[in-house]
């Protein structure tokens, strides 16, 4: 098993206005592995990333870096870096690329040059004197990755790193991330709403719904043999040109309001297999073998 770098235990975030964005999330990130966190918009997956990056304080729960409680933020962020979803928003428009890349090198007293960072993300060195608006989306996201690499982190939190990019260049960025992971032996958290890309890119996949992780396990297992009804719905809904024309229509319903989530299982109002118990009691994590688990009453017996 690869070394555990970052561990989250029971992370919970409630916002002041009462939104319960993240509820009791536990995660483990290992060196050299990509962990995917999949969910719809509003499921709380981005909040998890910000919690792990310590950009927002957690309401409860703890984060362990290499098994220890992390110290000062600067030390912490040297090990844990984040890549944001929108490369058009995550680079300050008023700074040249050189500034954006030099700053983290200075902050973390790294000896590399910004040129080396650009090279690592396969961009030419003459990009240093350009402004973000002169770059395409894919190039920007590469710059953002280079910035994250400047600190020589061991963990990379990638929050939907390709969802804002054009389809044709998404692969390039994902492949770059994978290469870097291999080369630098990084632990990567890959957050996405596209479960198909999690299958391709991530070793492990966790599925979030309504602020909670509902299923987790090996990516291939989770995508090919989804256990939780929500994961099943997610996979059934994904666009699929090979899909038989006579598939069952998708059930109607809305994602839960995080302000006042339903009691019990948060998916229960939309769940075609919900039992009265699902409405009242939160389901436990039920292990399905090989590290595959689901938080669903359907698998209670398996646990027992």
């Amino acid at each position: 098993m690869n070394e555990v770098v970052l561990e989250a235990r029971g992370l919970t975030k409630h916002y002041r206005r009462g939104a319960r964005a993240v509820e009791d999330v536990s995660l483990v990130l290992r060196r050299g592995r990509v962990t995917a966190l999949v969910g719809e918009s509003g499921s709380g997956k981005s909040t998890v990333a910000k919690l792990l990056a310590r950009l927002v304080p957690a309401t409860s729960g703890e984060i362990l870096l290499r098994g220890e409680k992390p110290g000062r933020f600067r030390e912490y962020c040297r090990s844990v870096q984040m890549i944001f979803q929108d490369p058009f928003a995550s680079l300050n428009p008023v700074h040249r690329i050189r500034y954006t890349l030099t700053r983290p090198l200075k902050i973390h007293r790294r000896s590399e040059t910004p040129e080396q960072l650009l090279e690592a993300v396969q961009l030419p060195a003459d990009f240093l004197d350009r402004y973000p608006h002169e770059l395409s989306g894919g190039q920007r996201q590469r710059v953002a990755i280079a910035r994250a690499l400047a600190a020589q982190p061991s963990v990379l939190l990638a929050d939907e790193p390709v969802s804002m990019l054009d389809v044709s260049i998404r692969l390039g960025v994902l492949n770059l991330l994978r290469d870097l992971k291999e080369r630098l032996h990084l632990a990567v958290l890959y957050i996405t709403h596209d479960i198909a890309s999690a299958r391709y890119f991530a070793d492990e996949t966790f599925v979030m719904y309504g602020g909670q992780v509902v299923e987790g396990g090996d990516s291939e297992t989770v995508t090919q043999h989804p256990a939780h009804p929500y994961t099943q719905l997610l996979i059934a809904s994904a666009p699929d040109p090979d899909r038989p024309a006579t598939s069952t229509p998708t059930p109607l319903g809305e994602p839960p309001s995080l302000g006042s989530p339903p009691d019990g299982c948060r998916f229960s109002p939309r769940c075609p297999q919900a039992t009265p118990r699902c409405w009242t009691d939160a389901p436990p994590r039920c292990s399905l073998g090989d590290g595959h688990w689901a938080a669903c009453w359907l698998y209670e017996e398996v646990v027992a």
Partner: protein
Amino acid sequence: MSVLEVRGLSVDYGTLRAVHDVDLTLERGEVLGLAGESGSGKSTLAYAMTRLLPPPGVIRSGTVRYKGFDLLSLAPEQLRTLRWNDIAIVFQGAMNALNPVASVATQLLDVFRAHRPSMPRAARLARCRELLHLVGISPDRLDSYPHQLSGGMRQRVMIAMALALEPEIVIMDEPTTALDVVMQRQILEQMMELRAALGFSVVFITHDISLLVEFSDRIAIMYSGRVVEEAPAQSLYRAARHPYATGLLGSFPALRGPRRPLRGIPGSPPDLRHVPSGCPFHPRCASAMDVCTARTPVLAPVDQHRSVACWLEHENRGAT
């Protein structure tokens, strides 16, 4: 039989040419998919057809034939009566497409007020309820304001509004990009049911080609302001001919079946300010030849159902 015929449409955006000499035909009752990446001109094309392109967009050439009229030659007042009554649009990003300070009812009723002035108020209201019901929203949502609705509900309201006058054509511009996959499927499936029931034609614009393959009858793929390939959805999916179309199809990871290797397309989509000479795709094309850098291929039929704009095809055709 075609309901809409676009011929030689060119659109400038300031000094940039965003749509380049496009021909397109929409058959009655079909779903025509319009695919392409950002800057490919797919949305510009759709808005230009209805002359809704905001400034500084200017239409430079072409005709858009609908029921014997050329939409581009109509006086504003004539065009106004055609709009929505005949051609409705479902916009992307439903958050901004609904007037934030007006209730759902007001915005629905506006349509009747403009196009069915003689319709009694009670009938209008009844129709509004019916429409909401049609798209699966409880009619008591009529008094809601847009911000009180979820993204999916807003998009459904937009669809209800688009269908209010039972138009001939519905243009759907990335109707589901802001929504997650479950909601996306719900809405598209519903739309297709309604189309089957009401019989309108759809122009479906999206960058998600796998979605298009699943939901449309015919697909036109745009690149840098031009249509590069046009073919029935399934045949395009099985065997795309234009290298760009092939690359695009190869960029989507498959959820089912074996893990195919993904190819993707190298390079970046073209910047309209610096369009490459010749075939605009040639810098990213693995099969590029000398001719590709010099001359721009035109869209030409390669078989009964398919047209492609690529020198490879032209050569093939010439060879046979």
